[in-house]
């Protein structure tokens, strides 16, 4: 059993899933689902489609260089079965996965570090530049000509009048 990678989105293709296309020069394109296959048929470049791993790696959204990736590699030589080795490997998989997740979180934090400060800066700039668009509520209270005439009272009076007419 071998878990292949999808050609388009680089996710894992589990046995029995997806479709594979064999080009005449014997290059095999594996797809995890029809979504990826359709995108391939539309001749889209995975590096330009935002949800693929290729795009995210290219733009530095995901961690690319890490020692934890070295363990997951295609090996063409079949390993001879050894009970102890298998046991150790299964133990190591969990540990490596944990380490990888921690490192990915750290990468994300690093990437998002300056975001809040940047947003604040932009907000301050906008406030300075377009303060003329908004008036302070105290200014409205001081100068009644700035507020709209109140229609609420008129609306309340109308039903009373109709009632009175009905009585007459």
């Amino acid at each position, binding site marked *: 059993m071998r878990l292949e990678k999808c050609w388009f989105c680089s996710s894992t*293709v589990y046995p*029995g899933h997806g479709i594979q296309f064999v080009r005449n020069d014997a290059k095999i394109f594996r797809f995890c689902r029809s979504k990826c296959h359709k995108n391939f048929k539309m001749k889209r470049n995975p590096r330009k489609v935002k949800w693929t791993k290729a795009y995210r790696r290219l733009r530095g959204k995901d961690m690319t260089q890490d020692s934890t990736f070295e363990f997951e590699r295609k090996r063409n030589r079949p390993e001879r079965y050894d009970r102890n080795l298998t046991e150790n490997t299964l133990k190591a998989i969990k540990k490596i996965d944990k380490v990888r997740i921690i490192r990915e979180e750290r990468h994300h934090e690093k990437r998002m570090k300056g975001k809040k400060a940047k947003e604040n800066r932009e907000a301050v700039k906008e406030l300075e530049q377009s303060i003329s668009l908004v008036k302070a509520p105290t200014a409205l209270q001081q100068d009644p000509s700035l507020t709209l005439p109140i229609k609420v009272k008129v609306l309340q009076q109308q039903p009373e009048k109709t009632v009175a007419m009905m009585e007459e």
Partner: protein
Amino acid sequence: MAAGLASKCSRVGRSLLGGLGNNSSGLLSTSHEMTCSTFLSQQQRTFIQMRTILKVVDNSGAKKVMCIQALKANKKGARLGDTIVASVKEAHPNGKVKKGQVVYGVVVRAAMQRGRCDGSEVKFDDNAVVLVDKQGRQPIGTRVFGPVPHELRKKKHVKILSLAEQIA
């Protein structure tokens, strides 16, 4: 007053713009779909049936054959790995097979996808055939070009598999 008016105007303008934007995007998407459907790769691929022209990928001398009957296959036609009866439409001047001859062949590549034993699917670039004798066992040529699926082993065409360059 002025402020209120301005805000109203802006709201109307935005809604108009939004409507325009929606319309334009809808138009774009429909045109895109139309262009995509005209792609050759998006063509609906079907069974190999009467009058299907297939490429011959061996050195028997024939270049192109036309299917005239699918043997022991689905009622609708032949798929990957099935045997067909065909008539030679194009041939090399001094090959083993002449133009107009009726020959038997095994479909080694089909553009229509075929389910694999594990539930995934496989498809190829084109429809190709390897000519065999009337018993359907021995290939007429001595070489096979291009990739060939491993399903042929199940169909007991081991000779073709051993001659093939690549097995997909």
